[in-house]
């Protein structure tokens, strides 16, 4: 992956192939900005998607729960880890079949909104992603439940 000079990361993470309009949501999910440079590309031409958003964050390395959250923003997001200016790892994010403790159930009378219990959601067929709450059995879309 070639990086334009101004956006070159030394040590950090590139989140690529975000659907257009989701860059801000991605920053929000990751609790950004914090220290270190961040570059955000919006409406970037992409051979595979037409247009895409892209986020590059210096000094950021993501753990599994954060990756699971990010993956919900769009199909086939890629996360590239850069060490000392070179790409050390590139992954296409997968949405797990079961999301544990990641989404909040939007059903106000769901038992998970009253008791201390980790939410469990099952991925449904198709895209945009939809998830079924294990407890109240309502279907929810991650946009509203993240």
């Amino acid at each position, binding site marked *: 992956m070639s990086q334009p000079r101004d956006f070159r990361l030394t040590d950090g993470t590139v989140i690529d192939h975000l659907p257009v309009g989701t860059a801000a949501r991605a920053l929000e999910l990751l609790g950004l900005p914090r220290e270190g440079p961040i570059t955000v590309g919006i409406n970037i031409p992409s051979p595979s998607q037409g247009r895409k958003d892209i986020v590059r964050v210096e000094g950021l390395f993501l753990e599994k729960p954060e990756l699971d959250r990010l993956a919900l923003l769009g199909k086939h997001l890629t996360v590239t880890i850069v060490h000392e200016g070179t790409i050390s790892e590139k992954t296409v994010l997968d949405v797990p079949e079961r999301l544990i403790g990641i989404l909040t159930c939007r059903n106000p009378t*769901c*038992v998970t909104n*009253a008791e201390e219990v980790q939410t469990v959601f099952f991925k449904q067929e198709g895209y945009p992603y939809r998830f079924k709450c294990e407890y*109240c059995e309502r279907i929810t879309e991650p946009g509203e439940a993240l």
Partner: protein
Amino acid sequence: MGGVGPRSYTSPLMAHDGHAGEAFRGRSVVSAEDFTKDEILALLDAARHYDRYQDDGPSFSGIEPSLQGRVLGLLFFEPSTRTRLSFESAMLRLGGKVLGFADAKISSFSKGETLVDTIRVVEGYCDAVVLRHPREGAARLAAEVASIPVLNGGDGSNQHPTQTFLDLYTIRQAAGTLDGLKVGFMGDLRYGRTVHSLTTALLHFDVDLKFIGPENLSLPKDLRDHLESQGRLGAEAESLADVGDLDVLYVTRIQQERFPDPMDYQRVRNAYRVDREALAPFGPELKILHPLPRVNEVATEVDDLPGALYFQQSRNGVTVRMALLDLILGGQAGGSVS
């Protein structure tokens, strides 16, 4: 279990399908969807044995007190008199005992204690619990934390599996089969959970599913999509007159709170009222079910028709719950009696 005296009873269930019956022992009942077709049929087969309670009256002859010494907890965090009394009746008729509360408002359990804590305390008092709770998913959660079986007596607007089982039992008892039937659901198709659960359970069988209701109370999108993807969405009509042949008509109540305008409610209520005139085209063979209580959806003049099954359906609630409790707690039908 230390039974009193010799028992020569052979379970009709064990003779039919031991494996499916075994599947109930010690198991929680949260949703009818957790059970396979074979398991549901095994339960319905076993339930036939308990029908005798309806014939034999208070002497209970023919039914072993197989749950003697067992205790069923009835945890009703919101009132539901019918469900509670029919579980209680089922347990008492099998020789067991019940304890619990009928309304969390008058119980100290509601005072800030979490459901999880309540379950952990109560499981020390009884062999199984029936839980009725206003929150969707309460029974699933309770079943996860409890070391004893949890039977869902209704979790908010979500599931009420024993209602589904008794509905299936009633249809099968009256029609002799669950296959080859045309079943119409009428009333509140959107919010009526009995409609959703029974529809889903009937997908196991060769049933033509039809739906009659006002447009603003039509099937929820997810269920509709599901039926459509399975090629099982039958006729949909706004009027009973337009739905074609039916073997079974399942009527549900349309609740006033679904209509902001009281005039709209009046109009819809009258349009979905079943009386002798509306039923005449279907002939005397039509079976009419209703989960009760009714308000005026089914005219009392219908009660005398041979197909009016709703009070029988209500009695069957005890029959089916007897079978379920016996299977789960390992009484007669579970085959543990020697």
